[in-house]
């Protein structure tokens, strides 16, 4: 339980960093989604139930601080977590390239999922948002992917300090059913 509460606080701190420090970047579109990287990391650290609830809460907080009035991230983040849990056993996730690709694909797929949700609830077609695929989503996903290996390393260090567990690679960490 202590692990869940500490991870939730860490998630809140990461969200605040994302809304403050990262917004000072001169080019907004290269701001990586570090909360998504954290959610992916949680998939290696937690069993599905606790991790799913944690991802749900982090999605809820993300919605709270965004201009998103309905709460799309509350739906998408638990799905991202559970999908990452599903794939972590099936793919080789060590090394810079694979971790980057893993995060890049998840960021892109989550963006597409949110876009589909937005289109589903909006009565008018969202023609305005199509260019954002190339100008915003793709660059952000790319930089999220680039930042992932470094942040996975930082999260590993952090969790080994907090939970006093020996440092292990992304593949070996956490729950095994």
């Amino acid at each position, binding site marked *: 339980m202590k692990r869940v509460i500490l991870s939730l606080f860490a998630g*809140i*701190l990461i*969200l*605040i*960093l*994302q*809304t*403050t*420090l990262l*917004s*000072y970047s001169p080019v*907004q*579109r290269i*701001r990586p*989604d570090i*909360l998504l990287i954290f959610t992916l990391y949680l998939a290696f650290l937690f069993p*599905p*139930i*606790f991790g*799913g*609830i944690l991802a*749900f809460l982090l*999605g*809820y*907080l*993300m919605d*709270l*601080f*965004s*201009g*998103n*009035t*309905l*709460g*799309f*991230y*509350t*739906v998408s983040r*638990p*799905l991202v977590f*559970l999908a990452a849990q599903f794939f972590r056993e099936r793919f080789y996730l060590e090394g810079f390239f694979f971790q980057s690709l893993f995060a890049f694909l998840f960021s892109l797929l989550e*963006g597409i999922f*949110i*876009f589909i949700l*937005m289109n589903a*609830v909006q009565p008018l077609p*969202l023609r*305005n*948002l199509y*260019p*954002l695929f190339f*100008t*915003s*989503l793709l660059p*952000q996903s790319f930089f999220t992917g680039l930042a992932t290996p470094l942040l996975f390393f930082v999260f590993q260090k952090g969790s080994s300090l907090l939970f006093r567990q020996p440092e292990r690679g992304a593949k070996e960490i956490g729950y095994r059913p």
Partner: protein
Amino acid sequence: MRVRDFFVFRGYHLFVLIILLLLLGFVLMSLRAKERKGVEFFDALLMEVCSPVQKASTLVIKTVQETFQRYVFLVNLQKENRMLKQKISELQAGNHRMEEIRLANERLKQLLQFRGENSLSMIGAEVIGQDPSSWFKSVTVDKGERDGVKKGMAVISPVGVIGQILKTAPHYASVLLITDYNSAVDSIVQRTRAKAIVEGKGENRCELKYLLRTEEVAVGDAVVTSGLGGNFPKGLMVGEVKRVDKKGHGVFQYADLAPSVDMTQLEEVFIIVGPLPPSPHQEEKVKKGKKGKK
């Protein structure tokens, strides 16, 4: 007793969890769409808990940034530049207001409305956080319900319109920027008085929609608020037309608009908390009502 023992269908606990979380997410989405008080209260509570940390974080970042800018790099140039920029903003705002008054006089509009525009009751607020997502455009400010801020209130700067209040907590509020795809502001082209709706396009861009094809619009035209939406007073600068698209056929033409305010550099904003001067539409209604009584 372990947590998983609570599940009746132990073998299907993951499946049950996925269904439950998705269901909860969609229920929350539905409650938010209906604007239920319970969800709004919970949102406000969480915002109230998290925003002080956000404010402190912004303060630390700003302090470090300012120290570097003022003392390490350039001592006085930064200050002077800011003063000059502020002066330009003030002059620009004054210029637009003057233009509005001149045009209104030409068409024999009442001066009282413009006096009303200048006596708006506003409070200053500091931007303490930006939107964490890439799809949506909003900022968090350090003024809330206790300061008289309510949902839907207009948020402006000396340069022009910024957005409107989206969510409120006792001491904090979230502002939906005009660049967000959910935002729509009733506006007019200042030169030709053509009516249109300014919709957000993300990435510091907007689009002028529902602009009749017969109306004349050119690159460089200023677009101001019409005062018809009920949230914004008339004559506030929204942006400048950057591209006009006639699209070959149809009733409407479209135009790309660059907002007058740089939404990526927001630091301080004004929230209009007082009552707005009556819009021309409301005035007409009042006049008709009076005639009817006579």
